[in-house]
């Protein structure tokens, strides 16, 4: 029997090119009754990358660069006025809020120059230079004030990022108290050098330090803008051309995965750090009534606007905005329109929850802990879908899984 049986496998494999080769569009000889054609004009990964690169990444970098320049000017004006309280400080604070809001949008846009080189193709680590939270060190800022290290020519080379970015600048602009953030045993307290500072001198030094930081933030913002600008580094073009010559991405799938990894910020940072810890849902908070001291941007009271900007960025990446495709369109293309609708609704609900109440989060945690914890639930609804059906349907890998095999 065996000797007379046709080699079915060989026939099956030989038939593959015939099946494919004989099919133009809707002429599949075996499946045309069950399967539709690939829709003409269907949204592709390349379409999404082209749109997000130009309309989201490049334009957001340009907006931050502009706000960085405005921040630098405002802080310089405050410095020129001798520091301390006054209209110049208020203007500098407003400029910081504007820059910070823009940067919080950029927090999710990690693909390309903003990301770390070891995790992102084309990464230059600009993100950490501009904003290092949750790695912050107000005590280090105070130590630099006493030693006037910010005036040294090698200041940026000699310091860690936790005393150089928007977070350090926040401390300098919004904390005007006479004391410092260091324990008593630290030298500036133990040796009395902090206590010896005249309050006026302290104000001047804060303004001078802030000016140095604002200048660097503006330069880094400009570097990021130039890297994305079609007239400059044109990273948007390289993102759009993934898989082609001149692009650092081997394929559109790889490039899309890098964009997607930015969305993971909503899970690891927005949900787990910005909300779970301050609202007492994390064991890192020892108090059952929450840990508002662990909120982001505590001196400026800017945690709610920061979260809002994060979610708006997430929604923008997801939907592509009003004038182009995003991840949601790929979900629809893949047959998961229901998931696209659910996630869009989850984004809208989370954004509405933050927009609908202007109570600072520290106050909300103190007055209505359940309400604050509900915000965690809103973000979790998004990230639950993100980590389950979203990654599965779009066949994306979670961050840092590149060296592992499957079978």
């Amino acid at each position: 029997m065996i000797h007379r049986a046709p080699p079915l496998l060989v026939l099956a494999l030989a038939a593959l090119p015939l099946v494919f080769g004989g099919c133009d569009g809707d002429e599949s000889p075996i499946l045309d009754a069950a399967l539709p054609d690939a829709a003409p004009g269907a949204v592709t990964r390349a379409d999404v990358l082209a749109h997000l690169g130009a309309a989201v990444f490049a334009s957001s970098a340009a907006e931050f660069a502009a706000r960085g320049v405005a921040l630098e000017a405002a802080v310089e004006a405050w410095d020129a006025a001798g520091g301390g309280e006054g209209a110049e400080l208020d203007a500098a604070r407003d400029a910081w809020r504007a820059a910070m809001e823009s940067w919080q949008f950029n927090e999710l846009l990690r693909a390309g120059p903003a990301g770390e080189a070891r995790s992102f193709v084309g990464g230059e680590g600009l993100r950490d230079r501009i904003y290092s939270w949750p790695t912050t060190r107000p005590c280090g800022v105070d130590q630099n004030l006493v030693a006037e290290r910010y005036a040294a020519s090698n200041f940026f080379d000699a310091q860690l990022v936790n005393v150089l970015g928007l977070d350090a600048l926040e401390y300098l602009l919004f904390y005007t108290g006479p004391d410092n953030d260091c324990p008593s045993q630290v030298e500036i307290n133990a040796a009395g050098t902090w206590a010896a500072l005249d309050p006026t001198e302290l104000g001047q030094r804060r303004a001078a330090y802030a000016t140095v930081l604002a200048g660097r933030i503006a330069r880094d913002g400009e570097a990021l803008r130039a890297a994305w600008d079609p007239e400059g580094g044109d990273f948007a073009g390289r993102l759009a051309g993934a898989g082609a010559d001149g692009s650092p991405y081997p394929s559109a799938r790889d490039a899309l995965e890098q964009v997607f990894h930015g969305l993971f910020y909503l899970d690891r940072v927005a949900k787990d750090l910005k909300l779970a810890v301050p609202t007492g849902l994390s064991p890192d908070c020892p108090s059952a009534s929450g840990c508002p001291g662990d909120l982001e941007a505590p001196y400026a009271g800017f945690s709610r606007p920061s979260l809002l900007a994060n979610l708006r960025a997430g929604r923008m990446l997801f939907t592509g905005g009003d004038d182009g495709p995003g991840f949601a369109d790929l979900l629809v293309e893949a047959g998961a329109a229901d998931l696209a609708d659910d996630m869009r609704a989850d984004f809208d609900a989370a954004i509405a929850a933050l927009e609908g109440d202007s109570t600072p989060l520290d106050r909300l945690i103190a007055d209505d802990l359940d309400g604050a914890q509900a915000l965690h639930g809103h973000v979790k609804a998004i990230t639950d879908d993100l980590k389950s059906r979203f990654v599965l349907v779009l066949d994306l890998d979670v961050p840092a899984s590149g060296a592992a095999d499957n079978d």
Partner: protein
Amino acid sequence: MSALLHRAGRPVDVASLAALRVLYGALMCAALVRAMATGWVEQVLVEPTFFFKYAFAPWMPVWSPAGLYLHLGVTAACAALVALGLFYRVAIVGFLVGFTSLQLMDLTNYLNHYYLVVLLGALLGVMPAHRAFSLDVRRRPDLRIDAAPAYMVWLLRFQLACVYVFAALAKLNADWLLHGQPLAIWLASRGETPLIGPLIAHPAAPMVMSWAGFLFDATIVLWLSWRRPRALAWLAVLGFHTATGLLFDIGMFPLIMVTATTIFFDPSWPRRLLRRPPPPLPDAAPVGRPTPAIAAVATLWVALHVALPLRHYALPGDVLWSEAGMRWSWKVLVRAKDGAVTFHVTDPASGRRFAVSPGRYLQPRQESEMAGQPDLIHQLARHIAGDFARRGYPDVEVRAEARVSLNGRPAALLLDPTVDLAALDPDAIQRAVRPMPDTPPLSLGAR
């Protein structure tokens, strides 16, 4: 029975065993060097702070980074010695111990082809694969033999047949054969692959390739075992595994299968390749004649490796959902499964509740692997309970909200979210598994 034993003891050229030894050792050496060179060690064994353990080896430690590199280096050296056939018995034991212990360090690293490596190594380790084409023979010419008993080749063929046949059996389900899933999901993201991109982006591709894959797995052993189409069948093996290797991140698996299936060739194939005449075979194999004891062990081996992949039929639930009976079953690339898990921890003493993300303890890759596997979720739940005890909450309850999507279905709860996993015996985790959702997988027709 005696006729079977007689046939099993029939001498065959030892050359194909020796060739498999050479290929196996070289491939494993390359795989381990690759693991050290590509960051696998750091990512998989250095960066994590928590490791999932096999129930039978909870004691397996994870060395320091220097220790890990030493471990891999020594194991790779053993693999090279295996390929060279130098100090073979010691080398293959060293390789097997090194490779197996590496797998035992973290359960999320389980891969079917790593399991196959261990099984093939164990079989080769008891065979005289070093007694031809080896430095051991050059060192000690008295070791040289030209023939080995046929059952040795049979056992290796059986082991490879298990992979294909049970992989085919695993594909015998509606998702694979009627919905083209999960291939449809995977192929959709690879439509721009050079040359074959337009083919795999065709709407018919998932169904055609699902059926082709099923037919390949179901019949390839037959074609490889049959002399006339064997060469063509092996070319099909080469084509099939090359294609899957190019399309999917499956590491060394294609190379392992392509090289290991050479055992289906006539045992003298290496000599023919080297244009050497096959040796005259003795009347009886000089070593390893199938005594009743050897026959009993071989029978047990075969029975075990037939029973293991079938055991899920005796367990409740769908194996792709519950994972009961999933490991060591050759269910290769048959399901796409991702999930999001949140551990809800309650301290009964204070009434305080926590929402704990796995990311607190796991690397993203580990979290992704854990999310669809109930026993791993349970392991982490118990670890979380221990961590909370150290933080001053000695008797917390830990419940898992595990939302899992299988082959593109809407995410559903994998575990009963009311079950306190901290108090649940590890053997009882399947009782907490909820039924598989009766929704269909992601629909091709909706693309």
